[in-house]
């Protein structure tokens, strides 16, 4: 069992595996997102209090969730990379960051758009909003540190360490909101008809799963590029290039 693990922990054997895995995540992600969006945008009835604008929730909430989960996932891979000294895990952490930052930005963006009709302003300095902004800066800091170091090995190790330290911060800023008076709450917009809540919840779930699958597919894609870039001197990359005749990265 262990042997299998370590076999795929080597970039050379993970590269083709990742290539085979990508469609298995990307295609379901597309299908689910399509279903979710059609249901959310056209099938479900408008909310009696907010009208149509509440539909943003189907993007907003999954994006907000993903932005937090992905940071934790980054830290997880960084720890694995550090403890078992595996290059692949460190690359996984790096590959996840842009996706996390994208979701984080999406949550902020949709939230701001939603804020205009509901709160009358794009932005308030509310705790939930501010901490989400802070999370975005944690991603940007991670990527900035990684970009600022020339040596790829040092870059991976340093930004991995940052992800681990930052991961402690994610739950703290998430829960710190509860000690804070906050404008942003879910309860006020939850429709009180229960069957609608249920259908809403299921659409949200579909969208969340789609976001998960998308994130994994993109991370795998990006890790493949990272592997090629990092292992460009390795013999297997040379073989790959001559075999497929393509020059990558």
């Amino acid at each position: 069992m262990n042997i299998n693990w370590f076999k795929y922990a080597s970039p050379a054997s993970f590269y083709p595996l990742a290539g085979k895995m990508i469609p298995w995540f990307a295609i379901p992600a597309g299908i689910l997102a399509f279903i979710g969006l059609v249901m959310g945008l056209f099938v479900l009835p408008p909310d009696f209090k907010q009208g149509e604008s509440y539909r943003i929730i189907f993007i907003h909430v999954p994006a907000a969730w993903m932005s937090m989960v992905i940071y934790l996932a980054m830290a997880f891979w960084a720890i694995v990379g550090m403890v078992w000294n595996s290059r692949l895990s460190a690359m996984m952490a790096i590959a996840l960051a842009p996706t996390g930052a994208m979701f984080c930005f999406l949550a902020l963006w949709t939230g701001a758009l939603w804020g205009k009709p509901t709160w009358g302003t794009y932005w308030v300095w509310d705790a939930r909003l501010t901490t989400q902004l802070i999370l975005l800066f944690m991603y940007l800091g991670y990527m900035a540190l990684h970009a600022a170091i020339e040596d790829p090995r040092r870059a991976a190790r340093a930004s991995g360490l940052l992800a681990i330290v930052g991961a402690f911060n994610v739950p703290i800023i998430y829960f710190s909101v509860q000690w804070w008076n906050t404008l942003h709450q879910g309860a006020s917009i939850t429709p009180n008809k229960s069957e609608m809540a249920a259908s809403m919840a299921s659409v949200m779930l579909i969208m969340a799963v789609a976001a998960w699958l998308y994130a994994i597919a993109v991370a795998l894609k990006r890790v493949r590029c990272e592997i090629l870039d990092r292992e460009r001197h390795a013999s297997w990359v040379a073989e790959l290039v001559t075999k497929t005749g393509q020059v990558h990265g």
Partner: protein
Amino acid sequence: MLQVSGLFCERGDRQLLNGLGFTLEPGKLLHVRGANGAGKTSLLRIVAGLLLPTAGEVCWRGKPVKQQREEYHGELLYLGHLDGVKGDLSSIENLRIDNELLGANADEATLVAALEKIGLRGFEDIFAKQLSQGQHRRVGLCRLLMSQAKLWVLDEPFNALDVKAVKLLASLIEAHLERGGMTLLTTHQDVPLSGARVSEITLGQTGRR
């Protein structure tokens, strides 16, 4: 005994030390030679544990050093391009800290004696940044007089020293070898060391073109 095997090191896009290996035995000195940029400093830093090699291993007394970092560092003395002397502290203050960091347990009198021996008498209380380059470097060299380390790793220790100091340093190294110590050394200058204990390796100049 220091054993180095199968070292590879990638810096920038260049591949240095193609599988380098050697053994250094008590009482012996290994002079690492090579042109500028050949990888001498990289090698010495790997041996000192300051740089991770891409592949390969450094063993001390038969055991990989990464499994016994603190013991190994207790027996190691490394002097690099930077001499590790703090400009805002006086010479004697610098020595006190080095003494502690090396775990040398030398007392104050020994420190003063070391400064005197290295030719800095009268400069004990001057801030190191007010010393001349050679004097500054000498403060760093005082470590050789204090430590009981078995393995000396010296990266161009003769730089900036005048003729007298070069001789003194050479005699210190000889005495260290005499006592059964080991030395790993790089220098571009010709050094007055007796040949019997000295062996050499030359790192290849693998320029990038």
